């Protein structure tokens, strides 16, 4: 702990960049690779200026082949490096699904623990910026299905800045999902920044009447909904999952045991969603705490539309979250 702390204002994007810069400075084994991460500064501007500071050996532009450069990252990790692979969007990570699921997640287990894959894969997820269906889906729930992976979803500047260091220190492959709508989010960070835990949920707003479970890009919407609800004297607790795998079961159950009502917000589609996993958990282990049926607020089951009014209509909103919460309290 430093004796002096100050706060400063910056964006989620800048917070991510600071995390990258610190990691690159702290450990020579760390390097970043991906499409356009160097000269262009990253498709979403996260790695801007890093090429100048760290050079092309450590900020590496790659060909347009997710499978190839993710596989290269796995090889580098097996070889003792600490690679950070940037995949432009989760949609494109499907091209690297074989590397991530069949190799990265499995090698430690298939080798009887002889080989660790300390790989970090960063990717953008989510909709809300009129980037159309090929760039807007929320598939992090698919990865959360796979043992051997850790799946993170930073929803605050603090986590954007702080999750990378413990992710690199972890011997398992870690996927970090950055919601596209958050890059421009402004906020303040303490200086020096606080360390954060790799996993474990966090209560972003305590409340007593209903639990709003959210993560990543849905977190600000849930917090907005909680403010709306507060005006109606409904005291909502907002629980930020932070990590989808491992899921912090205890935090979810403890919150539901306090509020007895739950709304799960998940920008993915409802069918087979991570929200379904959370609701199933509550039903299995906290049924007798429930005072109302659980609610899910998910995206409408269509490929995310390009047109703004349709895209807005398809996604969870603070209004829909608040309406679901009101149903749980019977108002």
């Amino acid at each position, binding site marked *: 702990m430093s004796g002096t702390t100050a706060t400063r204002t910056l964006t989620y994007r800048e917070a991510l960049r600071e995390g990258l810069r610190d990691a690159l400075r702290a450990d020579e084994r760390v390097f970043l690779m991906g499409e356009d991460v160097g000269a262009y500064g990253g498709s979403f501007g996260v790695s801007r200026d890093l090429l100048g500071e760290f050079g092309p050996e450590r900020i590496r532009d790659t060909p347009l082949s997710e499978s190839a450069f993710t596989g290269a990252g796995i090889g580098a990790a097996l070889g003792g490096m600490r690679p950070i692979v940037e995949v432009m969007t989760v949609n494109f990570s499907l091209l690297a699904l074989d590397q991530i699921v069949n190799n990265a997640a499995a090698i430690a287990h298939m080798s009887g623990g002889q080989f660790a894959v300390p790989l970090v894969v960063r990717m953008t997820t989510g909709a809300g910026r009129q980037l159309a269906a090929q760039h807007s889906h929320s598939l992090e729930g698919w990865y959360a299905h796979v043992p051997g992976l850790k799946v993170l979803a930073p929803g605050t500047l603090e986590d954007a800045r702080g999750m990378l260091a413990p992710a690199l220190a972890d011997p398992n492959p870690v996927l970090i999902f950055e919601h596209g709508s958050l890059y421009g989010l402004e906020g303040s960070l303490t200086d020096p920044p606080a360390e954060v835990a790799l996993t474990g949920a966090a209560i972003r707003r305590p409340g007593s009447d209903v639990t709003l479970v959210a993560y990543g890009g849905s977190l600000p919407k849930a917090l907005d909904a909680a403010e709306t609800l507060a005006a109606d004297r409904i005291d909502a607790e907002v629980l930020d999952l932070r990590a989808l795998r491992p899921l912090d079961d205890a935090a979810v159950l403890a919150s539901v045991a306090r509020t*007895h009502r739950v709304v799960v917000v998940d920008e993915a589609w409802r069918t087979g969603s991570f929200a379904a996993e959370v609701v199933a958990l509550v039903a299995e282990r906290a049924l007798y705490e429930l*005072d109302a049926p659980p609610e899910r607020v998910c995206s409408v089951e*269509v490929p995310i539309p390009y047109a703004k009014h349709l895209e807005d209509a398809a996604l969870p909103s603070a209004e829909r979250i608040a309406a679901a919460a009101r149903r749980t309290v019977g108002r």
Partner: protein
Amino acid sequence: MSDFTMPSLGADMTAGTLLEWYVRPGDAVRRGDIVASVDTSKAEIEIEIFEDGVVGELLVEVGTRVPVGTPLATILPVAGSAAAAGNGAAPATPTATPVAAAPPPASSPPTPRTVAPLAAASPPAAPPLAVPVEGHRTRVSPLARRVAAQMGIDPETVPGTGSGGAVTREDVERAATTGTTPPAAEPLVPAAAPAAPAVQSAAEPAVADRRSAMRKAIGDLMARSKREIPHYHLETAIDMTAALAWLAERNATLAPPERAIPAALLLAAAARAAAKHAQLNGFFADGAPQPAEHVHLGVALALRGGGLVAPAIHDADRLPLGELMAALRDLTARVRAGTMRGSEMADPTITVTSLGDRGADKVFGVIYPPQVALIGFGAIRERPWAAGGMVGARPTAIATLAADHRASDGHDGSLLLAELDRLLQHPEELA
């Protein structure tokens, strides 16, 4: 379909033995019907059902002892909405309510209409939230169901205010404290009566067992009272001359069945005084006083051969003396005969104990949890009484109040006793 469960017939009851079924499968029952009798270890109680329906299956055999909350029978919805019992071979589908009747989820924005060839990529959007529930089953949240079981309340009788009209925990707790259903009882502790055999002879439960079980039940409840309730005690001597003279004059004009005894006059005065002092009439539950809206006067009645019960006379503050006397006579007779009803056992808001003409001079009361006060009357006797500078012999009664300091203070209690005294000096107000 719903379950008819072993009710809690008082804060000291954790289990009961089913003595007799008055209904058989297929019988139609209405809310309030007496359907069975139960031995609570304190008394044989006739228990009522809280809903209309048709008796499905009897789940507990006569003679079986089961914890409070155990399903005793299944109750099917009344005929007409669902398949009536014995209504022929083809059962109607109870879930006849069309799903389409459920309101569309208010939250969902209009689903973007996909063009026909792409429709296969678009599974149904959000399902309707309100899926019709089968038959007449009341919606009760799992939490409310759990809390109700702990309190010994039938949640199906509680008005629901939650999601889709469901009964919520808050509804159950409100019902428990306002007395619309039996109030909070001891949490169900199935192991509480380890000595009791699993099955007792139903028709004649062993008297010794009954007595020792009752003694234990009373002991447990009174220990809880002494442990949890910060009692304070007040007493006041009441000149009964005017009250007894008025009563004798009244009774002299009436045939025996219409006459009232002094104890009825004392109860009438106590009920009216309690109605004016809400902080002494009600419960202490969930860490806070819960004043009751009605006066359900618990009357402590000794059982021959030991033990006592304190069933309630409902709305006793509104009964004229004659009706109160009739209620008291009816209750006494049924206590003696062992045919009390569940609703009488479970919901007094304040208890009165009157030791009667053969009793001691005064009572130092022990409050029945979760009530907050108990009024006691000793025997009415001639005692020296100073008035107007002279000492004379007058019939007097010593009224005492035991009250819960968490709900009231001595000043409140004094006012109640003063009102009691005032009423007994003006007995015509009790007529």
